């Protein structure tokens, strides 16, 4: 047998063509690679944790289900098709125009692409904070400490693990806008602000107050530009988009404007919230990491960068929904870029890098407390028999209407009709609807009694038949229309 390569046909390596001292690109500078490694490391860890939560049927926040359905509807039915969760198009919820390109991403990459994009977007904040720190003249060691604290900030980590929300995609745009304003680049500032505001109108309040803060700093051109952009987006949303696409609660322009700005009419609510344990818990989770950073070297603590962040926090304290004062979801996210820029502005100037124990000690302590909190809240209530649950869920046809609890809707909502059992009880069910019930798992908003009533109603009236009933999992399919409780009354 003759070997395929019996002899060397040419010189294996000639020294002549290797005079290449030109670098391929500035990306190969170790410092920059290091920053990208931090961003991508965070993305990888958070994507894995989000995927694990999803695979274990622990995504109970309902937002993932709602947005999956919204993206499915935009791609298959158009912009104005109402969501079965809210009764109106989800574009009218926060005027998140980013849903349009996201629908393409969801179509191509599915749920994993959304979770990965969210983790990457939040991870990019580290890179942009390092850039802002460079612009402000903060030493690299301190900037790294602030960037790490940002990645571990309860709001950032919690938003990532909670579910999915388009406002997370606005965060890098706002940070890039802040950097552009510090460098005095008006056009870039405007471009990034537009991108941020198109992601979610919840940014209107901090961006408007930022504009005012810039005016107070006598940076008139940039201040006017920022405030004007926020005002235009608020006006367009409140006068055109929300009354047309939003629900009945925001049909009047005044109510819509309050919704856009994230404000409550109850000004005294802030005082009530501040007296409650929940309000204090919220403030401690937010302020403890920031005050730890300020201890690295205070110089100009009283700066105007705090104003937009504080505005969001106060607005959340006045809000009636309990979720607004949770430090682990996306509702406080619009404040984050400004709070961390304020910290960086406080630390500007040459300084020695923070001592390693100073950084590692609090980080380790925070991670232990945060992990314990997460395990006690978000990582409990894994539905039993998830293997069977997955198999049963796979038996539901991809376009059939479905009724399921919130943790199951994160998997099943990518279709035109997906509802919670309590809503189905009220509104009734069309023939051919699949009802997936796991009464043993009570995670989320649906009480076990509602599940029992739904099953009893569907079966006893002879409207549905059982397809699967084993190991605490029930799958029903309706044969005829089942009237809702309200309809029957």
């Amino acid at each position, binding site marked *: 047998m003759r*070997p395929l390569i019996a002899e060397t046909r040419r010189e294996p390596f000639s020294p002549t063509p290797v005079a*290449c001292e*030109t670098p391929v*690109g500035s990306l190969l500078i170790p410092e920059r690679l290091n920053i*990208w490694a931090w961003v991508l*490391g965070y*993305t*990888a860890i958070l994507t894995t944790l989000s995927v694990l939560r999803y695979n274990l049927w622990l995504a109970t926040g309902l937002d993932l289900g709602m947005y999956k359905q919204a993206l499915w509807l935009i791609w298959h039915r158009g912009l104005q098709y109402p969501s079965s969760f809210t009764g109106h198009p989800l574009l009218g919820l926060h005027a998140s125009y980013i849903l349009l390109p996201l629908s393409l991403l969801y179509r191509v*990459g599915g749920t994993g692409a959304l979770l990965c994009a969210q983790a990457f977007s939040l991870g990019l904040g580290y890179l942009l904070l390092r850039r802002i720190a460079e612009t402000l003249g903060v030493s690299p060691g301190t900037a790294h400490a602030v960037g790490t604290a940002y990645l571990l900030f309860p709001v950032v980590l919690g938003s990532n693990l909670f579910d999915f929300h388009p406002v997370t995609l606005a965060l890098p745009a706002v940070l890039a806008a802040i950097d552009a304003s510090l460098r005095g680049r008006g056009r870039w500032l405007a471009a990034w602000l537009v991108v941020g505001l198109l992601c979610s109108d919840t940014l209107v309040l901090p961006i408007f107050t930022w504009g005012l803060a810039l005016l107070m700093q006598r940076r008139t051109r940039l201040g006017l530009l920022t405030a004007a952009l926020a005002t235009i987006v608020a006006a367009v949303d409140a006068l055109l988009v929300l009354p047309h696409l939003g629900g009945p609660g925001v049909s009047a322009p005044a109510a819509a404007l309050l919704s856009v700005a994230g404000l409550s009419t109850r000004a005294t609510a802030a005082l009530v919230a501040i007296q409650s344990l929940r309000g204090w818990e919220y403030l401690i989770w937010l302020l403890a990491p920031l005050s730890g950073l300020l201890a690295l070297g205070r110089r100009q603590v009283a700066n105007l960068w705090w104003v937009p962040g504080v505005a969001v926090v106060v607005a959340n304290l006045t809000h009636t929904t309990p979720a607004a004062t949770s430090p682990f979801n996306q509702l406080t996210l619009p404040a984050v870029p400004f709070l961390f820029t304020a910290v960086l502005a406080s630390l500007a100037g040459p300084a020695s890098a923070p001592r390693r124990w100073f950084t590692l000690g609090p980080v380790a302590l925070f991670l232990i407390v945060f992990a314990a909190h997460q395990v006690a809240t978000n990582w409990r209530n894994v539905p039993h028999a998830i*293997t069977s649950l997955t198999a049963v869920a796979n038996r539901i046809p991809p376009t059939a209407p479905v009724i399921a609890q919130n943790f199951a809707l994160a998997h099943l909502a990518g279709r035109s009709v997906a509802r919670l059992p309590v809503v189905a009880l009220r509104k009734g069910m069309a023939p051919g609807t699949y009802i997936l019930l796991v009464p043993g798992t009570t995670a989320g908003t649906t009480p076990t009694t509602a599940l029992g009533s739904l099953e009893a109603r569907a079966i006893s009236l002879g409207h549905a038949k059982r397809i699967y009933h084993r190991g605490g999992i029930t799958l029903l399919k309706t044969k005829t229309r089942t009237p809702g409780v309200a309809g029957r009354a």
Partner: protein
Amino acid sequence: MKLASVVRRRLASVRVWIELIRNLAVRDVETRYKHSILGLYWAIINPLLSAFIYSFVFGTLLHSGTSDGQPFVVYILTGFTFWNLFANGLLSAAGSVSGSAALLAKLYFPRVVLPTAAVLARLIDFLFSLAVLAVFIAGYGVAVHWTLVFLAPLLLLELVFAWGLGFLLSALNVLYRDVTQLLNLVLMVWIWLAPVMVAVNGRAEWLQSLFLLDPMGGIIQAERDMLFTGHLTSPVSLWSAIAWTLFVFFAGLSLFKRIEPAFSEVL
């Protein structure tokens, strides 16, 4: 004008890099098989022999199988073919810098081309293994899905993962020679944590999740899915593998560039 000249210079340097990588990869393949009687046929014999052994042990002695009724020997050989591309590429890359001490002393060239060429050189072996796999698939009459065209991006992902880890390990191996020894042990354990010899379909959901959250597990299962079934077992988990691949690549390159100035001194 200035930008155009910068772009032209950089493109020229990229061309030189590609030429250099190609030369080093060819040298790697040639030196590996140069003084052997069977030469490149070894690239066919190795996977063929492994397939026969595993098919005898798992198929005939242990009566193992997959839940979808696919012949186990085909299942294992597919896993091995894709795993070997990664494992062999990684092993070659890990020793690429420390094994080129003479070259590094004589010539100046960007050091990153060494692990790059080492990983790419393994593509030749992989192509031969793929031919063996094709024969087995045809021999057992297993249907192949048209989605096998998506193997190309998945293979690219696998190569980038091996490439990134190759950067990391080749740099560390210059400082600590234990790295290659340790790598052999790690790969020996890792192969059992990826769905190479273990079928994930039909396992408990949590176990499936653990298998597929391992980046190599996610990639290998996706490659197998694209080849045979046409639908991914867990498309969500593949995104986790993509994220880890990008991280490993950038972290590996970053560490390599950081240690690079010490190469000439240590070697």
